[in-house]
């Protein structure tokens, strides 16, 4: 590792190649592009920061949503381009596809997305939220404030299945009910029958794990139904989600995007100096029409943590880098973030936001402190969770559509 660079001249010191693998085109290209932007912004910051005695050379690759491409592109980077660290992947299927490559070639994947959990790989650093940081706080809030009968609607793949399983187990464990659990093929916008079933089953709230176009179509149909049915109003029957973010509110547009409840560790509206700086740099770099989101922030965090760890370890080898990152706390746009050496996931601060007409979220709840990640929900205890609900201010009463009732 070289010594620090001299001011006023071009950066000296080693140039470290870093893989950046996101699908900025393809079926989830909108999110992929945000994540790419978050990572590139961080790389540029690292390269301009004289604290670092090295620079990053981004090796950007776009698998365009093709699983085979993820594996081939990563393998090529690791084998022929001297890459030891890759920031990348959004979907769980793409992560599962590349993990064997990282294990075989002893490299590190910095995975910057919230996901359904139940994984802990030695060759992955997870900077997005684990289930105890996204769905559990959402369920807690809804059971306390809106009722205990939920209608689950999702896109037919693992993100929806696992989240709905967690939702079902917790809600039933708290003496609530699941009105129905419905799945649409990924990309489907065939929503009419879902609206009919919601009218029929009259749930207290809706939990949506729909993604992309299906999600937008559902929110628009919900808005449309609200013109002649008072049930379809966020005050009566809110839509909740762990994957609704700022760019998607823009995609839905209009009144249909307003009033929904999202669980996330990052919202663009967070009033912190670190976030204001992040946001202004993001817009200055990629355009004032661009918005940040939790996945963009997690990608940004991943790169900064990587740089800090390499700097502290004075090595790019993965073991020293991992040991170094465990000891570092980053003042991220969302708040303090650090990696848990128990499972390579991140301490993050869960928040809940209610969507506004301008495409942002009002933050309606934030955890007191960063929460230890629990990817396997090992420390989650349904009895304790239910017991804590019992201790809400006015006694164990939950408002349900069937009237106020005591849950015992």
């Amino acid at each position: 590792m070289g010594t620090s660079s001299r001011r006023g001249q071009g950066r000296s010191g080693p140039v470290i190649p870093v893989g950046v693998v996101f699908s900025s085109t393809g079926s989830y290209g909108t999110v992929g592009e945000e994540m790419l932007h978050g990572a590139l912004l961080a790389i540029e910051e690292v390269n301009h920061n004289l604290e670092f005695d090295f620079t990053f050379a981004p090796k950007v690759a776009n698998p365009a949503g093709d699983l085979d491409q993820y594996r081939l592109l990563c393998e090529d980077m690791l084998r022929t381009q001297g890459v030891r660290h890759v920031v990348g992947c959004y979907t769980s299927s793409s992560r599962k596809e590349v993990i064997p490559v990282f294990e075989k070639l002893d490299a590190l994947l910095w995975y910057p997305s919230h996901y359904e959990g139940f994984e802990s790989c030695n060759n992955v650093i997870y900077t997005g939220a684990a289930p105890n940081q996204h769905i559990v706080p959402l369920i807690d809030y809804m059971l306390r404030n809106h009722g205990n009968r939920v209608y689950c609607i999702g896109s037919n793949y693992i993100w929806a299945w696992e989240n709905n399983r967690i939702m079902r187990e917790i809600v039933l464990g708290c003496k609530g009910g699941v009105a129905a659990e419905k799945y649409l093929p990924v990309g489907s916008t065939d929503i009419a029958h879902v609206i009919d079933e919601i009218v029929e089953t009259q749930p207290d709230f809706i939990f949506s794990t729909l993604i992309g176009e299906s999600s937008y179509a559902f929110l628009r149909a919900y808005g449309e139904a609200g013109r002649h049915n008072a049930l379809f109003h966020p005050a009566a029957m809110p839509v909740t989600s762990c994957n609704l973010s700022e760019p998607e509110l823009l995609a839905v547009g209009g009144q249909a995007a307003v009033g929904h409840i999202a669980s996330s560790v990052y919202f663009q509206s967070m009033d912190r100096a670190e976030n204001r700086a992040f946001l202004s740099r993001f817009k200055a770099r990629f355009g004032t029409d661009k918005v940040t989101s939790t996945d963009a922030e997690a990608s940004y965090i991943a790169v900064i943590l990587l740089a800090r760890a390499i700097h502290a370890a004075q090595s790019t080898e993965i073991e020293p880098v991992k040991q170094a990152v465990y000891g570092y706390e980053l003042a991220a746009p969302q708040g303090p973030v650090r990696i848990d050496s128990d499972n390579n996931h991140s301490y993050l601060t869960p928040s809940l936001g209610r969507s506004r007409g301008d495409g942002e979220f009002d933050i309606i709840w934030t955890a007191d402190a960063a929460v230890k990640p629990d990817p396997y929900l090992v420390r989650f205890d349904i009895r304790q969770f239910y017991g804590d609900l019992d201790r809400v201010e006015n006694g164990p009463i939950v408002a349900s559509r069937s009237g106020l009732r005591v849950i015992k």
Partner: protein
Amino acid sequence: MRKSSLPNFRDCHALVLHRSDSNSETLIRQLESLGLTVRRKWSADDVSATGVDVVFFDADLGYDGLFAWPASRAPIPLIAVMGSEAPGRIEWTLAQGPSAYLTKPIGSTGVFSALAIAFRTFEKQQQLHKSLADLTRRVEARPVLFKAILVVMEGFGVDDAEAYQLLRTNSMKHRVSIEELSSLIVGSPDSVRETMGNANRRILRQATRG
């Protein structure tokens, strides 16, 4: 409280019978991240299940005498950690009656599902063994039941169907199995009427004496 449909392994105790290497390190790390308390031991003889909920054992180096229990009679779920595919090793491994398998090298996936499979398979096998033992006992008692029917037919002057019905009714009344009542009757055929009336008390007395 509804039982969770997926097992949670928090507070379970795992024993890893494997030498210290990268495989056992990865395994232990995964188990600890799942909330288990883990102990590793190698080599080991006559390993008992006391204080242990699940055992992972090295199928490559395992040997007779590793466990305190007879082959295939493990009182807790066993998970084989397999590397070699030599037929002799597979044969020895199968003889231990493992409830699940992991293959080496142990990676980031497989440990959670192996645990889930092992506990479910073990539970099902225990249930099967229990009902099999019960059925076997009943089949073995058939000659006694047959003799008892003959005694009741003679003692009460009834046909075979009525005799069986009498045995059934009285065994239910006294909350003993029909086979137990039958063996009491066959033991003292002369006092069949008394036995039918007092089966419960006599069995209780026998149990107290035993």
